[in-house]
């Protein structure tokens, strides 16, 4: 009898394992084999800090927002602005200070209430009080509503690229419904937008996976391509690759280390684009902490002392481009002339240091976030090369974002490394943070009249002259050696070839919205 029980138990165990095996290895597309993934599953390394558009970080985090929050305008693949909740838009007058948006007819929030111009303004005003990374661009703006479907946005200073603020890249254009604004606490863990999908808290587990299902009140039913969009949080990038290879996810953001591991797999492919510049922000350009940094010759010497091609190859492999400017190829601010200004020349670097009175060298305290392995490698390589010309970098690593900011605010560090960096934006926005008087990365509040003048010229330029003015601004920043850029690092996306339309727009660093992708 006992033997039979043992046998039954053994059969039970084997049966459970078989049952488990049958249920295993299921891909996100299995439910619709052959027709591509009816469900879209994206993996990201971090959970969102919030689902509130006014608080959330940008970059890959936009994948949490795109499904549920439609923006007033969109970015088309050719880089131009496209319609969104607004179907007409443009500057009023020629000063680049007033921008008008006309709402699409019949457009509604997910809860079914119509979107009016007043709702748009209320949403903007809420966004202005937030602390998200792009909020600073909206704070100076004022709004008016000539009628119930028109919003006029006024900027106190000229802005040649105001429409960009209403695309998904900047989140302020993601309009929040009055129901959401009634209790802003709820915005952190629920969505109140007008996007093609709505967040489903019932199917989601906060911090692990976030599920979005179609919004029955979306204005364009044909634009809803998936039964379900799931964003899974997978902190380990190697686990993401395994999940991609086994068909559990459809798309992930890769790193230079893991991207080559999908080579040879015909069902997977890669798209990449240089999006952020990696290098040192020379914060102390007035010489408050390190006197030498106030001297242009010292800053130029630093730029001559590093071998960008060698560092880029060693740190980013095939997924980086050496750059000596805070702009990257493919963007309006990239200047071929600036790229030639600082060839690798340690002898010249030493000569410049000597001429500035620092022949025996100088020490620069630098803080950086060690939460990105590539950044750490890059900083250490720069440290080694600068040591060759007598410049000592005294490095301080922060293990988390808060510690990095905290160190930065002490103003004890003359330079810092922003991980993963900035860039991938129109030059008007890209250089604002680091080099203008009020930029959040200009911690010592350094003013440079030449930069101000170039920035003002760009701000007032029209679309035709904008390209030249953007390059001029880069040339000024590079000529005066206000930073120590090293590499343009690629954003790398690995995905299932069943997905179509996964691409970066011209002149932009954010993948076009996940809601626009389709399946074969």
């Amino acid at each position, binding site marked *: 009898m006992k033997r039979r029980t043992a046998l039954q138990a053994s059969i039970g165990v084997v049966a459970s394992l078989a049952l*488990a095996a049958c249920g295993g290895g299921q891909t996100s597309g299995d439910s619709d084999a052959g027709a591509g993934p009816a469900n879209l599953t994206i993996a990201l390394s971090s959970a969102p800090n919030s689902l509130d558009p006014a608080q959330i970080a940008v970059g890959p985090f936009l994948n949490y927002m795109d499904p549920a929050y439609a923006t007033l305008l969109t970015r088309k693949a050719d880089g131009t602005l496209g319609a969104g909740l607004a179907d007409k838009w443009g500057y009023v007058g020629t000063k680049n200070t007033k921008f008008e948006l006309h709402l699409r007819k019949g457009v509604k929030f997910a809860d079914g209430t119509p979107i009016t111009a007043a709702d748009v303004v209320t949403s903007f005003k809420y966004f202005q009080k937030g602390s998200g990374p792009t909020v600073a661009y909206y704070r100076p703006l004022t709004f008016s509503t000539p009628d119930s479907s028109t919003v006029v946005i006024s900027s106190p200073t000229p802005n040649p690229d105001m429409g960009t603020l209403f695309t998904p890249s900047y989140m302020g254009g993601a309009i929040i419904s009055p129901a959401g604004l009634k209790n802003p606490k709820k915005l952190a863990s629920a969505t109140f937008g007008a996007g093609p999908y709505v967040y489903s808290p019932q199917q989601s587990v906060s911090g692990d996976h976030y599920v979005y299902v179609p919004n029955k009140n979306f204005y364009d039913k044909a634009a809803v391509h998936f039964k379900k969009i799931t964003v899974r949080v997978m902190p380990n990038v190697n686990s993401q690759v*395994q999940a991609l290879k086994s068909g559990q996810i459809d798309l992930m953001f890769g790193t230079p280390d893991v991207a080559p591991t999908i080579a040879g797999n015909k069902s997977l492919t890669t798209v990449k684009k240089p999006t952020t510049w990696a290098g040192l922000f020379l914060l102390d350009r007035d010489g408050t902490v390190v006197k030498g940094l106030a001297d242009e010759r010292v800053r130029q010497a630093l730029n001559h002392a590093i071998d960008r091609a060698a560092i880029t190859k060693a740190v980013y492999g095939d997924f980086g481009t050496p750059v000596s400017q805070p702009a990257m190829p493919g963007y309006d601010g990239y200047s071929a002339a600036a790229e030639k200004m600082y060839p690798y020349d340690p002898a010249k670097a030493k000569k410049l240091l000597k001429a500035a009175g620092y022949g025996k060298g100088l020490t620069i305290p630098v803080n950086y976030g060690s939460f990105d392995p590539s950044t750490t490698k890059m900083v250490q390589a720069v440290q080694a090369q600068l040591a060759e010309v007598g410049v000592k970098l005294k490095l301080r690593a922060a293990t988390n974002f808060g510690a990095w*900011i905290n160190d930065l605010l002490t103003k004890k560090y003359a330079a810092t490394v922003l991980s993963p960096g900035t860039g991938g934006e129109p030059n008007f926005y890209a250089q604002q943070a680091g080099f203008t008087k009020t930029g959040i990365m200009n911690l010592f509040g350094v003013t440079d009249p030449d930069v101000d003048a170039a920035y003002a010229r760009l701000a007032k330029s029209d679309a035709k002259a904008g390209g030249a003015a953007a390059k001029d601004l880069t040339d000024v920043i590079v000529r005066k050696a206000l930073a120590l850029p090293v590499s343009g690092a690629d954003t790398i996306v690995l995905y299932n070839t069943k997905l179509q339309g996964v691409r970066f727009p011209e002149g932009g660093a954010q993948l076009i919205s996940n809601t626009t992708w389709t399946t074969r």
Partner: protein
Amino acid sequence: MFPIILRRLALSIPLLVIVSAITFLLESFVPGDPARTVLGINATQEQYDALQAAMHLDQPVAVQYWLYLRDVLHGDLGDSLFTGESVLGLIGQRLPVTLALVIGGTVLASLVGVVLGVYSATRGRFSRKLFDIVSLLGSAVPNFWIALLLVAVFAVKFALFPATGYTPFAESPGQWAAGLVLPVVALSIGGVAFISKVTRDAMLSTLGLDHIRTLRASGIRPSSIVWKHALRACGLPVVTTIGLMMITFIPGTILIENVFTLPGLGTTVVEATNQHDLPVVQGLTITFTVMVIVVNLLVDILYSLLNPKVRTE
């Protein structure tokens, strides 16, 4: 039995207070500013001051701890700084995953470990040597490495089990089991080696005892002597080892959950630590401590059941 349980529970209260106080103190030394982490560099001074006050970060550490303890006594572990979710709710959501791993790993390691240990003790010298080598390898190889190997072979190469993720039991029992097979195997391999070695040694010394010799002389079947009489006599050291192993599995889930991306307490503690989400870290520390206390209590109860002397001591 009941007094033992009561005494153990009473002892666990000061333990919980001490652990939570130490964690609180250590967290206060961690560099970085939680309010700044939440708000980022772009927040205004007013926003920063308001959050500091809301989080009591403008108070001395002792006051912060007292306020925290007061809330805990009212059943409130606070809210996550990042998501605003209740920490208790978060733990409730993540606990089943970790429990499934720890219990599954313990059951598997115990069953396989005991069977292997007994088998090795009753075989020849060559088998014992072989067993020693395998056992050494099992305890020396880190379980996260085994986990990666299992994923590469059974998830990616043969697509038998999912590489990552967790499906709740209520949603699909088949997928729930599928998702747990590889993590449980990875977690339990070290434990198998550990338990089998202890079982083998205990069994060898038990089989040499007088009463076993008497049983043999009485003509009782050898398998009955080993599995019924000798194994019961080996119970105490084996149960102790299983208890210890279960306690090591609790922090062990941190690595395993991260490799398999399971939404358990292990992945949560890593994320919360990186984000400087103090209420979550604190809540998880208390939870882990409670888990260890419960395991110890279970071991004590089993001890009492196996050895009546313990009850009278």
